[in-house]
């Protein structure tokens, strides 16, 4: 443990916290990632498309939703290269986060890999792909349109 201060102090008791986050209502999305598919939800009532997927429509307040596979073609709206990382990402190398807009109109925030930082530009076309984290869990991210 890092000592923070030269001032007299007493250390609080240590606890370890990890919440169990329910995914029953978005299971299709997480299962889809394992098959290389990225799903959004669409309200069958008003037609609005939701990403990240919503199990309920905030516009209609109904649960009449259907799962829709996204096209995966995205245009970068903005990005940043994260050098100084939080505690639970200390084991990762610095990473680039981007927000890309899909042709269906929804936007996705995810890591962008496969480029040098100097190559990344706002307006650039990239591909959204299902991926696996360093820890082996399903995720998604942006990558070059063509494998380099």
């Amino acid at each position: 443990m890092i000592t923070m201060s030269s001032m007299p102090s007493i250390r609080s008791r240590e606890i370890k916290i990890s919440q169990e986050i329910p995914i029953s209502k978005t299971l299709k999305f997480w299962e889809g990632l394992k098959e290389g598919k990225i799903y959004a939800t669409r309200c069958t009532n008003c037609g609005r498309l939701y990403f990240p997927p919503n199990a309920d429509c905030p516009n209609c307040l109904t649960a009449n939703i259907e799962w829709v596979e996204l096209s995966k073609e995205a245009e970068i709206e903005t990005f940043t290269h994260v050098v100084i990382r939080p505690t639970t990402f200390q084991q990762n190398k610095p990473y680039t986060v981007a927000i890309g807009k899909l042709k269906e109109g929804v936007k996705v925030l995810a890591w962008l890999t496969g480029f040098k930082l100097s190559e990344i530009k706002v307006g650039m076309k990239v591909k959204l792909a299902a991926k696996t984290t360093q820890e082996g869990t399903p995720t998604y991210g942006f990558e070059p349109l063509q494998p380099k």
Partner: protein
Amino acid sequence: MRKVAIIGVGNSKFGVRNDVTMSELAYEAVKPSFEDAGLTAKDVEFVALGSVGAGAWYEELLPAVVVSEYCGMTGAGLVRCEAACASGSAAFFTAYSAIASGQADIAMALGAEKMREIDNSTSMEWIGRAGYYFWEFHNFGMTFPAYYALYATAHMAKYGTTEEDLALVAVKNHKYAAMNPIAQLHNKVTVDDVLSSMVIASPLKLYDCCPMSDGAASIILASEEKVKELKIDTPIWVAGIGYSSGTANLSKRPDFVGLEASVLASQRAYKAANVTAEQLDLAEVHDCFTIAEIMAYEDIGLCKKGEGVKFLREGQTEIGGKIPVNMDGGLKAKGHPIGTTGCSMIYELTKQLREEAVEKGRQVPLKNYIGLAHNVGGTGHYCYVTILKR
């Protein structure tokens, strides 16, 4: 609705305050606010505390209770308000509402935060988790510098804003913080200092970011009847408050060149106060990162959209310009104890509007005696705009 005035203010020294507990720190703001108002702790009927890190970056889970006991206010009505970095303004609004509604005659808005009892990367973790843990932190490790860096990249791409332009915000705010005894950072910086500081989340560098801070600020509010009864010399009236919010997912925002919540909150505040941006003598804006101050100029209507950099470069937000902004050094250099900031902005506006006890170099010349505080929570998740008038 009853008229409400600020009748007492106090602000602790901001910084790394490992010499005091949460309660002892709050006391440093509460005591001078009572002295300023000529009241005692027993006069306060209701206390709204803005504080975010309870149980996370400091150890107490019920800080309103702990702090009130320490400051002699046990028995008053208590609540802790959370609106992320706008918690202080949410507390101010809550205390204001208690009086405006007729429920209380004297209330306190208190901000108190201790962010430096844990290491910096864990503080970054907690704050990053506050973006949207499930969709933006869990897999993507978003930090707050990273969020505002996304805004900076988009603003640069759309309006041609440069890293040097961003640096000018830091140069200005450090200059005024150097004159402010309660500020955390007293070092003046140059554009080169900012540009050569380490990259945190590109294009933002160390000197584009506010520090992690400990600090407290206390504001005592009273009804018009009480102001008369107590014969308060220079009450500062709450002219209007506006608020709004933005989506939890950053990806659901329409664009990344401004905060819609700031636009709406400021329009509502101007309407409530019946004033225009042109009538303001000074403003406190939410400059947690340099890009945030430029966006704030544009979002709250100090200048047109896309002209924030020009406004800054012309010196319009310095003393002598159209509207001095962040004459206390801002979050950027005065420090940003996140639940405290909203109350600390009100502290500064009150001191400025009273033309008292502000160091000469940073006293704003007053014409209309109107000031505005713009306080953003999260990445535009919350926004409160408060307009004060002498």
